[in-house]
């Protein structure tokens, strides 16, 4: 796997020159993902890693929306679920063959494919819709609430209720969504046999590639003008408005980006894990997405990704040994990090690094310059205080 370092060199020139450290980290991640992991891990563990990578894609989006934009979204499960279900519908229809009916529909439903499943017969339409549907929903919803200045905890609660409603809706439509069973038992992914280990590995590589691309996109957004505006909105929305920008537009855009990333993660989750059910998209998993982001470091570029992967990995392995101990551990870690280390573990790394040498030029630091981001609009609804 000697292609990767060279790849990174190219990336260096493609992106911005002189960001050697960020790129070194990126190259290292690429080597680990593409060369080391497939060699070291058994097919089963590699499959698990692939699943974690999908969850990490959601985390990248949350890192942008929450860490950089201050939008605490407790409902990313909705977009994850939309992407996942759209993909699952396509795989089901493809398994059923042209004009066929997915098995569960004849078992539990009327035996007819509803009209809103039909577009998913086409692979191209499916891929398009996986991006479009969450983008449009997030765009409409975001625009509606942000222009009305619903923010802070109000937005968090609304997004949580959205996740609750989405899960209930999925469960209630058993004939067309599989209900609590969800959709599973896929045989092929765009024609490739899913039981073949070679194809499973290929799915892993796709997930790794997509995740890396997402991280790149996130990085570009962060260092762009938009990224600066985003942080400004987080830290002082009114000031941004006075400067003539529209904070609602900024928030809507980042919410849409996060939604699309979650949807893509969901879409890849389906062929890799082989099942999607309402248990993966409701209130609890939606908050669960935040755990890794918070622990890793919400406002950094790689913190959410690494945190998310680490938490998923720990959950799988530790819970194998101590089912109930894991909950205490996870809860305690989460509490401690949020309460005492709001910048996440990433801020530890940076603190140590800054301790020795002179502080680096912030422009060269690809992570944000504020290790412990304050919440947007502190105590948003304790009225009476001029903002």
């Amino acid at each position: 796997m000697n292609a990767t370092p060279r790849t990174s060199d190219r990336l260096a020139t493609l992106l911005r020159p002189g960001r050697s450290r960020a790129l070194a980290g990126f190259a290292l991640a690429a080597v680990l993902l593409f060369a080391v992991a497939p060699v070291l891990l058994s097919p089963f563990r590699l499959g698990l890693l692939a699943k974690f990578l999908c969850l990490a894609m959601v985390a990248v989006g949350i890192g942008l929306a929450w860490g950089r934009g201050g939008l605490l979204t407790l409902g990313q499960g909705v977009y994850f679920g939309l992407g996942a279900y759209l993909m699952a519908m396509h795989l089901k229809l493809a398994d059923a063959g042209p004009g066929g009916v997915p098995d569960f529909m004849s078992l539990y439903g009327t035996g007819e494919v509803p009209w809103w499943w039909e577009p998913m017969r086409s692979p191209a339409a499916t891929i398009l819709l996986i991006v479009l549907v969450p983008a449009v929903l997030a765009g409409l919803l975001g625009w509606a609430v942000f222009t009305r200045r619903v923010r802070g905890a109000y937005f968090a609660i609304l997004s949580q209720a959205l996740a609750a409603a989405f899960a209930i809706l999925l469960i209630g439509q058993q004939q067309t969504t599989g209900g609590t069973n969800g959709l599973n038992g896929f045989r092929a992914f765009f024609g490739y046999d899913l039981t073949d280990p070679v194809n499973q590995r290929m799915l892993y590589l796709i997930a790794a590639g997509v995740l890396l691309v997402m991280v790149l996109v996130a990085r570009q957004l962060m260092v762009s003008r938009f990224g600066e505006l985003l942080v400004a909105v987080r830290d002082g929305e009114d000031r941004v408005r006075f400067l003539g920008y529209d904070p609602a537009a900024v928030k809507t855009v980042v919410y849409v980006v996060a939604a699309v990333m979650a949807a893509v993660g969901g879409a890849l989750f389906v062929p890799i894990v082989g099942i999607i059910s309402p248990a993966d998209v409701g209130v609890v998993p939606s908050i669960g997405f935040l755990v890794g982001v918070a622990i890793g470091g919400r406002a950094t570029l790689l913190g959410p990704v690494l945190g998310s992967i680490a938490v998923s990995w720990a959950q799988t392995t530790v819970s194998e040994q101590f089912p109930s101990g894991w909950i205490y551990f996870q809860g305690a870690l989460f509490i401690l990090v949020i309460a005492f280390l709001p910048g996440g573990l990433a801020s530890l790394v940076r603190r140590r690094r800054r301790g020795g040498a002179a502080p680096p030029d912030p422009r060269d630091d690809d992570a944000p310059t504020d290790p412990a981001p304050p919440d947007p609009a502190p105590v948003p609804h304790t009225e009476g205080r001029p903002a």
Partner: protein
Amino acid sequence: MRLRTPAATRNLGGLSLAALTVVTLTACGAQVDSPGADASAATGTTCVDTSGDTVKIGFLNSLSGTMAISEQTVHDSLQLAAAEINADGGVLGKELEIVTEDGQSEPTVFAEKATKLITSDCVAAVFGGWTSASRKAMLPVFESQDSLLFYPVQYEGLEASPNIFYTGATTNQQIVPALDYLAEQGVESLFLVGSDYVFPRTANKIINAYAAAHDIDVVGEEYAPLGHTDFSTIVNKVKSADADAVFNTLNGDSNVAFFKEYSNAGLSPDEMPVLSVSIAEEEIGGIGVENVKGQLTAWNYYQTVDTPENAAFVEAFQAEYGEDRVTSDPMEAAYDSLYLWKGMVEKAESFAVADVQEAADGVSFDAPEGIVTVNGDNHHIAKTALIGRIGDDGLIHTEWSSEEPIEPDPFLEGYDWAQDLS
């Protein structure tokens, strides 16, 4: 790694990493349509090691999350059966080595852990699962890995996988006898209450078909979302519909709220009995005996069943886990499942999946509920159906029995009225 195109990488630049992986996808891997697909798809090369003195089996139950309430009990009785079998010399002279995994009440986790048990731990068979969702999630795993799952809970039928043995009741051993019983009691109208998920919806589909053929009016059908806490509206609907009986397929916690509301609203088992198919001894304590006494249940086993095997089972269970513990149908079915697997293995004189499947037909066990026998065609178990009434002591007492084991018929092929169901 099959990235064999470094030249392309150089030329395309870094941003094409994703594209690269897509390109390589075309380079390898079996397509479903290609002729070689079958050969490569069969990953049936098992890693089960039976050369030593032990053989590994997996227990996969939810030990955390919302289903832990129920599944912990199944886990306990599986452990009991394993300990008994080991004390008695094991299976084919080999001691059972248990690998326990936590399904965490999530179907996705069940699928993941099943894969782990089969491919990493190399177990000879897996025992567990509770919700239909968990079984449906595991089914493709067991079929593609060609391994065995023993599923211990009554379920909605319409399924028969060569890789799953269903040791709980299918619909014609629980729901159909319950309907027969109600019809025999002169019930002419029914109200259906269930949780909003697969089992109740399928069960109610069957009930509707049965009712249509037997002159029973279904006067209402209501579903509550899982975790629903307020049943006043549903109970109002039940009350105003004034049916002869209520058929209850609610799951878990919902039963508590439902029965409290039911008795608070002044409805009693005398005027409108509720027949439940998901309430066992274990749940009665949580609902409160005063709220459910006199109501009916349909199962294949109660703690009060009068057989010597059951007396021994209850005694052993309480000695192990405490005098205050009760035994229930799914626990007993799980206990049976381990013994039935033992019977199949010993008949086959092999742990290999194909041999066990081959030998399965006719294997029987003197279970606490009475004799149970494996049906080799559909992998279900012939069981006796029992309608019970909840007593003041919090136990369930048999009210009516099918007297002899009913052959399993998961697709209800032997019932004329059920022909349009699947």
